[in-house]
């Protein structure tokens, strides 16, 4: 199991997963429908799990298998179920999402952020040893930045929140490459923490929808300092 060709194959597959992960984060910025965003997020989580499984084979670390399974269950199954259940109307009926920047501009901004992430990772990777680290860290960092861009640009509640969840997924993606020996309890708790987050946010969004009437949270600009005449 340790021969170089197998390791080579596993690393190439991991590289492929990383490329698809990056593509999925770009897709989050580019998609106009809420349903499509949700499916992309599920794809993102699946790629994360696949990468975790591949890395556990490369590093011979069984922690990562558990991480992959937990991630698959929480992010690909439980979270979409929670979101769909709590926000049925919003997730299914919204077709067009409004946003602050139009899509080509936000795609270009996402590209710029990816380049920035790669440039920022270069000095860090000079210290790292191994191809897997060299792949997961820049992709995770760019996913983090692109997720932040999505959250800043979208006006709708659910896609904004999916952008935030993508940020956390990307941080994890970088983390499993960089720190695979992190104690298991920490990684598992992080995954469950996200589930609690989703639960609370779905309750909040439900309340926003009930009391304000729309989930276009970009329109909520009541609280600010304005000098009254």
């Amino acid at each position, binding site marked *: 199991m340790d021969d170089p060709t197998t390791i080579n194959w596993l690393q190439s597959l991991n590289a492929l997963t990383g*490329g698809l992960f990056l593509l999925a984060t*770009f897709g989050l910025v580019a998609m106009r429908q809420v349903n499509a965003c949700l499916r992309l997020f599920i794809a993102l989580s699946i790629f994360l799990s696949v990468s975790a499984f591949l890395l556990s084979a490369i590093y011979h670390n069984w922690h990562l298998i558990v991480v992959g399974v937990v991630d698959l269950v929480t992010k690909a199954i439980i979270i979409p179920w929670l979101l769909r259940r709590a926000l049925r109307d919003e997730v299914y009926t919204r077709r067009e999402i409004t946003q602050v920047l139009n899509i080509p501009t936000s795609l270009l901004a996402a590209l710029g952020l990816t380049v920035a992430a790669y440039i920022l990772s270069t000095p860090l990777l000079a210290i790292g040893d191994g191809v897997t680290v060299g792949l997961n860290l820049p992709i995770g960092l760019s996913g983090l930045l692109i997720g932040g861009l999505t959250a800043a640009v979208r006006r709708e509640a659910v896609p904004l929140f999916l952008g935030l969840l993508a940020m956390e997924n990307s941080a994890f993606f970088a983390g499993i490459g960089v720190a695979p020996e992190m104690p298991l309890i920490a990684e598992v708790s992080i995954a469950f923490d996200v589930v609690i987050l989703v639960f609370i946010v779905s309750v909040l969004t439900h309340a926003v929808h009930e009391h304000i009437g729309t989930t276009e949270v970009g329109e909520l600009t009541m609280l600010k300092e304005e000098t009254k005449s």
Partner: protein
Amino acid sequence: MLNRIIFNLIQVVVVLLFAPLVSGVLTRLKEMVQSKRGPSIFQPYRDLWKLFHKDEVISDESSWIFRFTPYLVFVVPIFVTLLIPVLTTYPLFFAFMGDMLAGGFVLSLGGFFAVLAAVDTGNPYGPMGASRTRMVSFLAEPVFMIVFFTVSFVAGSTIPYIVQQHWVTPLTNFFEPSHVLLMLAFLMLILAEGGRIPVDNPTGHFELAMIDESKSLEYSGRGFALVKWGGYMKFFVLLCIYLNVLVTPWGLAQEQTLGAVLMAIPLVLLKILCFILVLVVIESSLSKLRLFRISEFLGAAFITSVAAMITRLFAF
């Protein structure tokens, strides 16, 4: 030496002969998916035969461009065929005449003249479609460039034959993230340049919505036949570049014998058939994009190709 010239000519003959067949099969499959019977797969040949025997009607207002363009559109894909690997993995006689960039430029030369000719006659629908075609083309240009640059950077050369070698051995190169992203970007490009759904409806007859069809609105008789055939060949050539260089660089003739080259023909046709199946699925499940969203579509293609380049540049 003589072998290589002959094989090059065989490549041209293959493209000439089988391009309408590809179009016929595609149309038939799309109709079958919609539970209709569809025309025979040899219908494009019959159409071309009929058109060559009809008179041409040319407007008085048109200039030499209108008369010259059908020949140019017909010849341009043949030029490009000389440069790309259609049947063989080793470079042929004309292979070093131009590289991938030259091929791209030559193809766009044909497109340029087609657009000019559409404006030439004074028909109001011609320029409308021509401007839309230009919009799609200029948005697709950066994607072409980036894809070619990345591919050349990866393989270390801009000659398609040499690029193709890179993906064949070793096999792990095939799964590089840059490769997968490039395949995706080029697929989106083919959909745009070939005038397929979701960019344009190739079977539409509604002039106000035409993009690619508008350039053949005014032609009749022999000119029409040449423009149609040229269109089929351009699509075939794009598919050859895509499949033989990027997606499935296997199944091409390795030895320099006539038998091997002839054996490669059905394999290439088989690959194209598989791709056509994928294309039919794409075309039948998506709907045509609104015009302003084409820029988003091509923007996504651009981003994908640049992402491919970045992952390749910074790969450790």
